[in-house]
C-alpha cells in the first residue's frame, strides 16, 4: 500500500471519529447545510494535506482540526456574505431553519450541556465557538469592552472544564462503586 493510500485511510479514520463534532461547529457557523457539507469535505482535504505539519506536543488533534474547520467556515461565510444575514443567529433558529430533522444528533441542544454557564457565558461561547465571532466582533456585537469579552470567555471555559472534568470523575466514581457493589 502506498503512502498516499495509508494517509487516506488515516484521514478516513479521523473522519469517522470527528465528522459529527466538526460538522456541528461548521453548520453553526455557515448556517447552510450545503455549504457546511462542502466545508466539512474541504476541512478533511486540508487536514490530509497538512497532517505532517500537525505537532501533537502543541495542541490536541481536535483543537488543530477544529481550527481548520472554523477558519474554512468563516471564509465560506465571508465569501457568501452569509454572515450579515445571520449575525444574531441563535441555536434555536439553527435547529428550526437550517437543519433537516434526520441530520440532527440526538444530543443536539447546546442549552442542555451548558446550563452550568450563566447567560453571559453561554452567549459568549455560542458567539465565539459556535458562530465563529472574533473577540472584536463579539465586543462590537454585545457592546461590552474587550476585556470583559476575554474575562467572560475565561470564566466560561473554566465552568465547562468544571462541568466535563467533574462529570467524568463522577462517571468513573459511579462505575467504580458499581463494580464494588457487585
Amino acid at each position, binding site marked *: 500500500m502506498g503512502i498516499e493510500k495509508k494517509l487516506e485511510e488515516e*484521514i478516513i479514520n479521523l473522519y469517522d471519529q470527528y*465528522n*459529527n463534532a466538526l460538522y456541528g461547529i461548521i453548520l453553526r457557523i455557515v448556517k447552510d447545510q450545503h455549504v457546511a457539507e462542502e466545508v466539512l469535505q474541504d476541512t*478533511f482535504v486540508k487536514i490530509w494535506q497538512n497532517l505532517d505539519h500537525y505537532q501533537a506536543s502543541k495542541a490536541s488533534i481536535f483543537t488543530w482540526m477544529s481550527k481548520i474547520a*472554523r477558519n474554512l467556515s468563516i471564509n465560506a461565510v465571508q465569501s457568501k456574505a452569509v454572515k450579515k444575514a445571520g449575525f444574531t443567529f441563535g441555536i434555536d433558529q439553527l435547529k428550526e431553519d437550517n437543519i433537516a430533522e434526520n*441530520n440532527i444528533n440526538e444530543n443536539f441542544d447546546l442549552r442542555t450541556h451548558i446550563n452550568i454557564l450563566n447567560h453571559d457565558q453561554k452567549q459568549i461561547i455560542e458567539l465565539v465557538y459556535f458562530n465563529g465571532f472574533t473577540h472584536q466582533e463579539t465586543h462590537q456585537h454585545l457592546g461590552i469592552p474587550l476585556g470583559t469579552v476575554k474575562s467572560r470567555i475565561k470564566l466560561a471555559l473554566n465552568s465547562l472544564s468544571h462541568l466535563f472534568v467533574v462529570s467524568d470523575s463522577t462517571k468513573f466514581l459511579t462505575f467504580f462503586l458499581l463494580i464494588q457493589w457487585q
Partner: protein
Amino acid sequence: MTKEEFINSGLLEEFVLGLTTEHQDKLVMEHLDLYPDLCQQLKKWEFSLEELARKNAIAPPSDLKNRLQQKLDLHDNNSAKTLKKTSNSSIINRKFWLNVAATYLVAATFGLLYFAYQNNQLSKQSEQLVLENAKLSAEKNDLESVSRKFSFVKEVDTQVLQFNVENKPIGTVFINHSLQKTSFKITNLAQPPAQKVYQMWADVDGEMVNVGVIESPQNGDLINLPYMKNATSLNITIEPQGGSQTATVANLVASIAI
C-alpha cells in the same frame, strides 16, 4: 511577557478556541515552554471544548464520506501526477542547485578561513604593536626620568670633577650644592678583578662614608650618588663582592678633592 501578563492577555483562551494567528500560536508555544503549569489548563480547556463539540455534534449526510473519499482520490491522482511531472526536472534542478550550493559553501569556507587567518595575523600584529608601544612608552618614561634626574649636570653652578688613574680619566663627578645632587659618569673604568667590586666613598669629617658600589662598570653609564653635604673628597676603592662596611685604603684606585 511575564506569566501574569500572558494569562491576562487571553491568548491561551483564543488559542484553544482556534482564534489565534500563526504568530500568536508561536507566542503561545513559547510561553507554554516557559510556564509548563499552564499546559494543564490548556489540556482541560481542550478536553472541555471537544466534549462540548461532541455533545453538540450533528451528523452530516451519510454519503458525505464517499464524496470525501472521491475528492481525496482525485487530489491524490493530481498530486501524484504533479509529483511525477516535477520529479525529473526537480532532480536535475536539485543537482544543479546542489552544485551551486557546494561551490558557494567551499568558496565561503575558504573565504572564512582566509578572513580568520588575516584576522588572526592582524590581531597578533596589533598585540605586538601594543606591546612595543608599551615598551617604548616605558623606555620613554625611563629616559625622561633619567633626564630629569641628571638634568642638573647642565646647570651652570654644577661642579665638574675628573677622576684620573695614572693621568688617565676614568670618570667625571657632577656635584650641585644648591640642588644637593651628585652623579658619576663612567668614561674609562676597567672591569674590577674577579670576585671584586669598585666602591665609592665620601670623606665626611675625616670618616669614609659609603656612597655606592659599582659591580660591572660600563663606559658612558651615569650613576646617581647620594649628596654628602660636608664631604671633602670622593674616593674609589676595590672591595670584595657585595662591598665593605669600611673602606680598604690599601686598595684605593682614585681620589678627588671637592
